[in-house]
């Protein structure tokens, strides 16, 4: 793993930020899991489907400082004048945020485990739902990294990524109203409908490719934003 990624991961776990965010998210998962457990059917697939939306609030806070802080503190100079190339730096930063997200994923394995302990059934759909959840997290982390490259103000970075994610989440609800080409685009970019396909237990190549290429596109645009700023800044 790159020096940048290792440094950022260490940074997350040295400060309270990772613990607070992971703690809040685990709390939300538990709140959603509790009724399912109580009713005795313990279906974590449905829970995963419901809690995806909360990533919109958790990930912007996780990613807001990742590039904005470097710009504000002048450490960007160190990164950009080092022999490590810009794409590698951006990927390192992304991997750090994604790693924190993966910690959430690993902790959440405890719920299906509880289901198994109480002799519930783990379905193959759960694997599909987890793949969808991880891909969604990757795409959102990339949105957050991109937003953080746009400004040196962390709060603004968080708001930008929250707005982008929220727009992507609700886009398909308004797609029909808007109609035409724009409506088509809104439907295409809607992550909610694509995520629902995963939690419904359908693993389609199209959706996997969508999330992976969307993540790559966001990281590519991050590199372009930083490169462009080098040309115009004073």
């Amino acid at each position, binding site marked *: 793993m790159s020096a940048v990624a290792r*440094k950022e991961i260490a940074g997350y776990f040295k400060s309270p930020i990772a613990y607070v965010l992971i703690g809040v998210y685990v709390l939300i998962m538990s709140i959603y899991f509790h009724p399912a457990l109580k009713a005795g059917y313990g279906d974590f697939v449905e829970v995963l489907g419901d809690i995806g939306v909360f990533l919109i609030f958790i990930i912007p806070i996780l990613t807001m400082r990742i590039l904005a802080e470097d710009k504000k503190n002048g450490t960007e100079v160190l*990164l950009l*004048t080092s022999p*490590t190339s810009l794409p590698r730096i951006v990927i390192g930063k992304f991997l750090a945020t994604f790693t924190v997200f993966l910690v959430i994923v690993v902790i959440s394995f405890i719920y299906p485990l509880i289901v198994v302990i109480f002799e519930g059934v783990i379905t193959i759909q759960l694997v599909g739902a987890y793949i969808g959840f991880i891909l969604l997290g990757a795409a959102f982390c990339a949105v957050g990294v991109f937003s953080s490259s746009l400004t040196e103000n962390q709060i603004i970075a968080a708001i930008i990524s929250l707005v982008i994610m929220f727009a992507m989440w609700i886009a398909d609800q308004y797609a029909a109203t808007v109609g035409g080409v724009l409506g088509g685009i809104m439907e295409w970019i809607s992550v909610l409908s694509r995520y629902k396909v995963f939690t419904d237990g359908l693993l389609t190549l199209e959706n996997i490719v969508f999330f992976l290429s969307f993540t790559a596109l966001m990281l590519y645009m991050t590199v372009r934003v930083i490169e462009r700023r080098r040309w115009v800044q004073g």
Partner: protein
Amino acid sequence: MIEIKNLVKHYGQVVAVDDISFKVKEGEILGFLGPNGSGKSTTMNIITGYLPSTSGTVTVGGYDITTHPEEVKKRIGYLPEQPPLYKDMTVTEYLSFVSDLKKAPKSKKKSELSDIMELVGLTDHRKRLIDNLSKGYRQRVGLAQALVGNPKVLILDEPTVGLDPKQIVEIRRVIKGLATDRTIILSTHILPEVSMICERVVIINKGKIVAEDTPDRLSAGLSKIAKLNLTVKGDKDKVLKTLGNIPNVRYVTMTAKAEDSIFKYVLETGSDRDIREEIFFKMAEIKAPILEIRPSAATLEDIFISVVSSDGIKHTEEE
């Protein structure tokens, strides 16, 4: 080692660096002088590959910064105006991160970092958070960071700013020590520093090079107008009149009264002929003993101001 050719940098309509060219030989320490906003930092940012230039070329060790950025960046250690520090890391953690970032050999990392910390005087502070260090020590961490990976070229943007006098002396000694096998470009506001450390000086103003030579020769060039500081005991009107009558004296004035009937004078001569003997005999004639006579050579400060202000005045008029 470093070659800068016809470098130009525009920020929109503003021309920050206007067609500058210079070379730095291997093992040389070059002083880079200029008032605030003259394009010093911009030039350094371009040499290190942080900013792209509008036109012109920069080559370091034979590699062009635009076509082979990684080769150039590997050879340069850069201390920017604001040291690029992560305040939530300890000194050791930070330098270890920089070492990985610069792709320095991992096997030698530990010994290299402890050597560097010893050199810049950070060994006792290696476990402290950078956030808790004073400005002087942060500056040292910045310098240490530039040294990681043993780069052959060092670009130091005002390395002694914010240090106390004792630290300044130490850091200067460190920089001089580093120069034995490295090429250094150093920018500074402190002019005596340049005469102390640098072998050659480039003065830049409004994005253009206005002077380039050794500090000594720059001083010599200006010292055609010799200045003498005199302290003479005796009637001041008589002394002034006598001094004024000496041929070649362009200007003489009393500057201060030292004690009863002892006065200080400043005297300027137009030629490079030494008139100190003549002054001695003239003063002896009027029985006014000379207590002190001291020629004052043009300092780098005089040069800097004369070189920079001739252009600067014109510019403010335009504005």
